[in-house]
């Protein structure tokens, strides 16, 4: 391999890793919602859009940095999530219907309302926040003068990658070490058993939808410095979140991170060596393959290894 080829390869890997962190961030909220409630939330991306609008207006009107907005938008989204669960999703779970997939259509309705309201309120203009660090990067040649190749690492992307790791760690701690977290997991694993053990299943569901929404809210705030915002943006990220969730394993936070990174690197590699237009195909092929050959996602592999030891 010549130097330029190595450079392309390494730069692609870096890009894939960072992209994976970002994807994981979006997927973590969904893995919780899908893991606990087994519902497909097609309004996930729209919730992120709402958070991005919050971050956008906080920045534009009050000059609050998007990274600070995480602490405002995430709680707001948490409340939205709890309300959605309490007043819309719970009633639907209760009604008797032929197809349980009713809830999915419900979330489609919610998504439609959210994105249409955003269009009505804020027009369909494309917006972005102009933070200083948006296109800052570290360069290899700045630290090593005679490097044969040039690599760069984007500041904003690296930060969101780190925060994704932190969030995963906190969430993992919450789910495995606290009582509430254990109840959430119990609900996820066996609803009836949890019910019998005296877990307030409804509260756990509200909590997990709330946390899921709050997480995607945080993702929105971390996302806005590197991307942009318009009302119809949700859909594509909902799909990505699904892929991460399935790839990582339902309800597994660590799985989401690993799944995100796998997907990120795979997509970047496809973009460089096959063609960028094909990257989405790769995404869904991985997805279907995971569904079939690895039904428990990456998390099931992790578990197996632990058992093996």
């Amino acid at each position, binding site marked *: 391999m010549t130097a330029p080829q190595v450079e392309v390869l390494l730069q692609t890997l870096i890009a894939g890793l960072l992209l994976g962190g970002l994807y994981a961030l979006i997927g973590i909220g969904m893995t919780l919602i899908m893991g606990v409630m087994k519902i497909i939330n097609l309004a996930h991306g729209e919730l992120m859009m709402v958070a991005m609008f919050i971050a956008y207006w906080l920045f534009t009107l009050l000059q609050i940095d998007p990274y600070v907005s995480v602490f405002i938008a995430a709680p707001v989204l948490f409340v939205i999530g709890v309300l959605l669960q309490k007043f819309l999703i719970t009633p639907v779970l209760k009604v*008797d219907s032929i197809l349980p997939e009713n809830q999915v259509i419900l979330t489609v309705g919610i998504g439609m*309302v959210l994105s*249409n309201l955003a269009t009505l309120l804020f027009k369909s203009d494309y917006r972005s926040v102009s933070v200083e660090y948006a296109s800052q990067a570290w360069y290899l040649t700045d630290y090593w003068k005679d490097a044969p190749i040039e690599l760069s690492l984007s500041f904003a992307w690296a930060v969101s990658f780190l925060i994704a790791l932190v969030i995963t760690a906190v969430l993992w701690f919450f789910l495995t070490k606290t009582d509430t977290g254990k109840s959430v997991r119990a609900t996820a694993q066996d609803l009836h058993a949890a019910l019998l053990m005296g877990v307030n299943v409804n509260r756990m569901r509200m909590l997990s939808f709330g946390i899921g929404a709050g997480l995607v809210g945080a993702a929105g705030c971390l996302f806005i410095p590197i991307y942009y915002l318009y009302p119809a943006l949700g859909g594509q990220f909902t799909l990505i979140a699904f892929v991460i969730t399935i790839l990582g394993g339902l309800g597994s936070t660590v799985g989401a991170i690993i799944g995100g990174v796998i997907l990120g690197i795979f997509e970047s590699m496809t973009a460089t060596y096959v063609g960028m237009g094909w990257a989405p195909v790769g995404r869904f092929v991985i997805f279907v393959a995971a569904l079939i050959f690895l039904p428990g996602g990456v998390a099931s592999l992790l578990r197996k290894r632990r058992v093996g030891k």
Partner: protein
Amino acid sequence: MKRSLPLIILGLLGLTPLLGLSSYIMHILIIFIMWSVIGMSWNLLGGYCGQVSFGHAAFFGLGAYTAGILYHHAGMSSWWGLPFSIVFVAGFSLVIGFIVLRLRGPYFALATLAMGEVLRVSAENLTWLTQGDMGIMLQQRTWVGKVQYYYIILGIAALTFFLVKKVIESKLGYYFVAIREDQDAAESLGINTTFYKTIALCLSAVLTGVAGAFYTNYMGYIDPKVVFALHDISIVTIMVVMVGGVATYWGPAVGAVIMILLAEVVRSIPKLGAAHHTLFGVLLIVIIIFLPNGITGDFGRLKKMFGLRNGADVDKLKRLLGFGRSSS
């Protein structure tokens, strides 16, 4: 009376063009019948057999592109797309069924969703075959008027209706419902679930594909973002059935009428027009909460709803069990 109702409605629909309706109304009718066809075929797989597909756009798009590609590359009339799409989509659905039908519940839904997206992106990238994003445009459609198109799609709809009815009232139908209600129990009764699910998928896919081939002929222009659309085809299909009535003969037609009328009427109201998605979404939420089996499906139950309040706890558990079943 009840037995001949379909024939009476078919007769009435058959006479409709004689009223001399404007071509706008005819267009709405054609679109409505087309959506009924798609809804009915989805219902066969989703409503009766319980396999909720989020990727019917894949079959619709394949049918549409069969017609388009025959026209564009083989120089044949795009009407050949109708028979050819049957063969082609059937073959495709067998392959895809082999992959996705081993999955259950939400996993099946997600896998079909992915299938639709894969086809869309592939159609965008296989430029040599599909013209990519530039789409395929018919130089000239066969007829300027609407009447011919109307009768063709009405014929397709009638065939679909009677086919679905025939299948559901046969032994096949009972197997389908058994699979929907409890797949493991059905299996233990000796029903080859994979085989019957494949039949349901294949029939459903083929009928949807024919509607797609019709779409090419009728609209005269297709591109991947239009015919493989996740939201505008796959999800609208589900909405049509859910709103109208899951696992009912007339549900899809009722759903199609409501969805299309509503979209047309609300969209045309000045000032309110831009909000039509909001109203749509709200309607959807209301229907899902209060009429979970759709308008036709819950019509009889509307009255009984009050009686169901007793024994709330038992009911609750039952519902929870019903919910748990889907995700196992």
